[in-house]
Structure formats: structure tokens, C-alpha cells
């Protein structure tokens, strides 16, 4: 594993607010990392800082060992596709052409296939595209650039479920053939959970989870059954959440659950179930009520 992006104690303050507080993380070369968190948590700020589009207030960022700020050699190794990407007033094919000049590894064949996949009209001005098609242009450019470091920030506003699945499938297929470092920020956690090798969760400017996806799967389980039995099972465990109806209780507890614990659950007639990544992220992202009242 080689670190390709290193974020070291980065803080970013705007007037009156702190978008990132002392954030440190590393992206390993050739992995797909999910950047998850609520709106306003700091995901886009972090991505803009990595791509040299924003200054840090303190701390350092290194991409391939160099500072990305106004560094053409580094910027050509990266592509950043944003939710609200703004293009000049040109036709779709001109936008692709411009991208092909900038990105040294541009794959014209893939771009053509993706245009077909998303049924994008090459001769239509980008201005006249629907919201979903507009997003598709970003996805085509983001994938066809074959940039060493590819960042997608909520790239699929307006794309329906079928088009999103095309995006995931093409991303996986192309990544398999041309391994590269991908950072994908999204709210659709369950949709991407199996694509991710690594997961970073940001909450209110701080990184609260930074772990491999495999590791996270074992971190929490749900236990459900008779309340008294659940109580007995969770006695020495950290309970993240608890819900009951009548004498029935479901609790989310931190793992790991070993064979002994499994046997114990069986004796107590309890059901053990997986906790989805989405559920886990929600529970890691602090209390919603607290946030609304704050």
C-alpha cells in the first residue's frame, strides 16, 4: 500500500464557521474510498482542498508527495467531478474534446461507449441538457479521463436508478482494467457500500470513521428477541441504539461477535443481523436532534 494523498492536520475556517477541524487521513493508491457524511459535514471542502481549489487555514496536503495548489503537473493527474459542475456554453462533444486535451490518459473509446450508455446527444449544447444528462456528462469525463486520482462529489444528481447502476458498473469495470485511486462522496450509501474498499465518515468537520469496509462490517450487529434476553446479551457491550415494542427489543451493539457469542445468542433465542453501512454511518454521524436544535 502506497499513500498517494496525504492530508495532515488540515483545518479550514471561513468567516465565523469551521468547515474542517484538524482532519488527517490518507488515500492509498489504487483503492476506492467512500467519503460519507451529512450535508455541510465538510466533504466537498475536503475534496476541493485535495484538488487544490481551496486553501487550508492550517495543516498540509500532499498529492503524490507534492502540494496540489497551482501545480499543473499534479492537477493533470487528478480529475474532480462535482454535483454542480459548470461548463462553458458549448456542445457536449466539445466539452469531451477539451477534456481529452487536458488529461494525458484520456480514453476516447471509453468516452464513446459511455456516451451511448447514457444516451447523450453529442451535438446538443450542454445548457440545453436535462439535469440527469448534465450529470452524465460529468461521469463520462470523470471515467474517460483515466486520471490517476479520480474524485466524484455527488456526481449523479437527477440520474435515475438505472443510470446510477450503469455508473457503478462502468466504474467497477474500468477500475478493474485500469486500477486507480477513487474518492467518491455520496448520500446513497447502501448503493455504493459494496464498491468501497475504504470508508471515511465526516461529521461536522471532523473525521469520525476511517476504516476498511471489511472492518466496518464486523463493527456492529443488531440483536433482536425478548427484551430480557436482549438485556442479558448486551450486558457487557456498547449499545449504539435500542428500540422496543412490547416485550420485543432490537438493539444495535458494537462487535465483533465471535462463535461463542453466536452460540450464546442461539441459546437465548436471539436473532443476530448485519448492520448496513448506511445505518452505521447514521449512528456515527451524531444525534440528529442535537444538530437541528443547535
Amino acid at each position, binding site marked *: 500500500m502506497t499513500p498517494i494523498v496525504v492530508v495532515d492536520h488540515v483545518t479550514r475556517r471561513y468567516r465565523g464557521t469551521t468547515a474542517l477541524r484538524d482532519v488527517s487521513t490518507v488515500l492509498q493508491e489504487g483503492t476506492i474510498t467512500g467519503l460519507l457524511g451529512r450535508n455541510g459535514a465538510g466533504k466537498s471542502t475536503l475534496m476541493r482542498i485535495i484538488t487544490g481549489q481551496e486553501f487550508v487555514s492550517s495543516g498540509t496536503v500532499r498529492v503524490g508527495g507534492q502540494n496540489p495548489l497551482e501545480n499543473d503537473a499534479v492537477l493533470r493527474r487528478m480529475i474532480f467531478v462535482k454535483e454542480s459542475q459548470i461548463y462553458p456554453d458549448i456542445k457536449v462533444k466539445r466539452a469531451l474534446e477539451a477534456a481529452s486535451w487536458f488529461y494525458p490518459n484520456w480514453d476516447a473509446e471509453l468516452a464513446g461507449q459511455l456516451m451511448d450508455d447514457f444516451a447523450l446527444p453529442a451535438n446538443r449544447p450542454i445548457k440545453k441538457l436535462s439535469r440527469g444528462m448534465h450529470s452524465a456528462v460529468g461521469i463520462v469525463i470523470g471515467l474517460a479521463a483515466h486520471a490517476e486520482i479520480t474524485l466524484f462529489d455527488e456526481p449523479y444528481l437527477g440520474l435515475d436508478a438505472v443510470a446510477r447502476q450503469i455508473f457503478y458498473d462502468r466504474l467497477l469495470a474500468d477500475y478493474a482494467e485500469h486500477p486507480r485511486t477513487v474518492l467518491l462522496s455520496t448520500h446513497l450509501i447502501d448503493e455504493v457500500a459494496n464498491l468501497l474498499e475504504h470508508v471515511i465518515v465526516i461529521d461536522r468537520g471532523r473525521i469520525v470513521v476511517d476504516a476498511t469496509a471489511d472492518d466496518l*462490517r464486523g463493527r456492529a450487529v443488531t440483536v433482536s428477541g425478548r427484551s430480557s434476553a436482549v438485556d442479558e446479551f448486551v450486558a457487557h457491550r456498547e449499545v449504539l441504539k435500542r428500540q422496543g415494542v412490547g416485550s420485543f427489543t432490537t438493539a444495535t451493539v458494537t462487535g465483533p461477535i465471535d462463535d461463542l457469542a453466536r452460540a450464546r445468542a442461539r441459546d437465548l433465542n436471539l436473532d443476530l443481523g448485519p448492520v448496513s453501512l448506511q445505518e452505521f454511518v447514521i449512528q456515527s454521524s451524531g444525534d440528529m436532534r442535537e444538530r437541528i436544535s443547535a
Partner: protein
Amino acid sequence: MLDDGAPLFQQIADQLSSDIVDGALAEGAKVPSTNEFAAFYRINPATAAKGINVLVDDGILEKRRGIGMFVVMGARSRLIQLRRKEFAEQYVDPLVTEAKRLGIDTEALIEMIRRPPDRQRSDQRPTDAAQIDQATARNQATAIHQTTAEEEGEAS
């Protein structure tokens, strides 16, 4: 298809070993590539690779340089041995636990395994009718088995 709470790579390894035990993947057969697995299950290729490597470490699969991954000869019988060991824990223990909870004693449980309740019912009918019933059931079971095998053949 993939979600029982176990790590994804483990589920891939389990799925592959099941295919070998069932015979869907014969000994000596070539195993789909990491990327094919990743695309099929829509998972990260690194995860698929990790799952395959579990079976390489266990000596179930072997890598032939430049050609691909293959099922080792003798892998099926070794997997069956392993699964028999796990059988008690995974199936018999829960069965006995639930039987105890319902007040079914060991003798009654053994009797139920020998003569499943639905067969006991058909035994009470006139002999020839029961025989026809059982023959039909057997034919159906064979037919189902064949369809499953065909489907698996198409899927792989």
C-alpha cells in the same frame, strides 16, 4: 444474494466453496477471474481477490501463472470433510436447541428425522396410494434437482 453480515470476502469464499461442493465448479476447472467476480456481484475487485485468496491459502484453488485460477484436484472431498465438521455446530446444535425449547425429547427428534412428518401422513394412507405418492415426490425432487443444475450451468 450477498448479505449475511459476514465480511464480503468471506461470503465470496463461501459461495465458491459451495459451488465446488455442489459440483457446479468441477475439480480442475478454471475459476472466474477476480474482475469477473467483481462485476457479477458488483463488489470491489480487491474484495473479490481477497475472497479467492482465502481459498488459495486453504489449498482449494491454485494459481497457474499467466493462465488463471483453478480448482485443485481433491478439493471437493476436502471441503466436504471440513463441512461435515461444521455441520454439527451449524445445523445440529440449533436443531437440538429448538427441539428442547419445544419439549421434543431426543427419541422423538430422532424419530422425526427418520420419518419426516409429511411422509408419516402419507404412510397412513392405503399402501399403493402411498407408494404412488412417494414415487411422484421422488420424480418431482429429481426434476427440481435437474432444473437447478441446469440453471447453475447457465449461470456459471
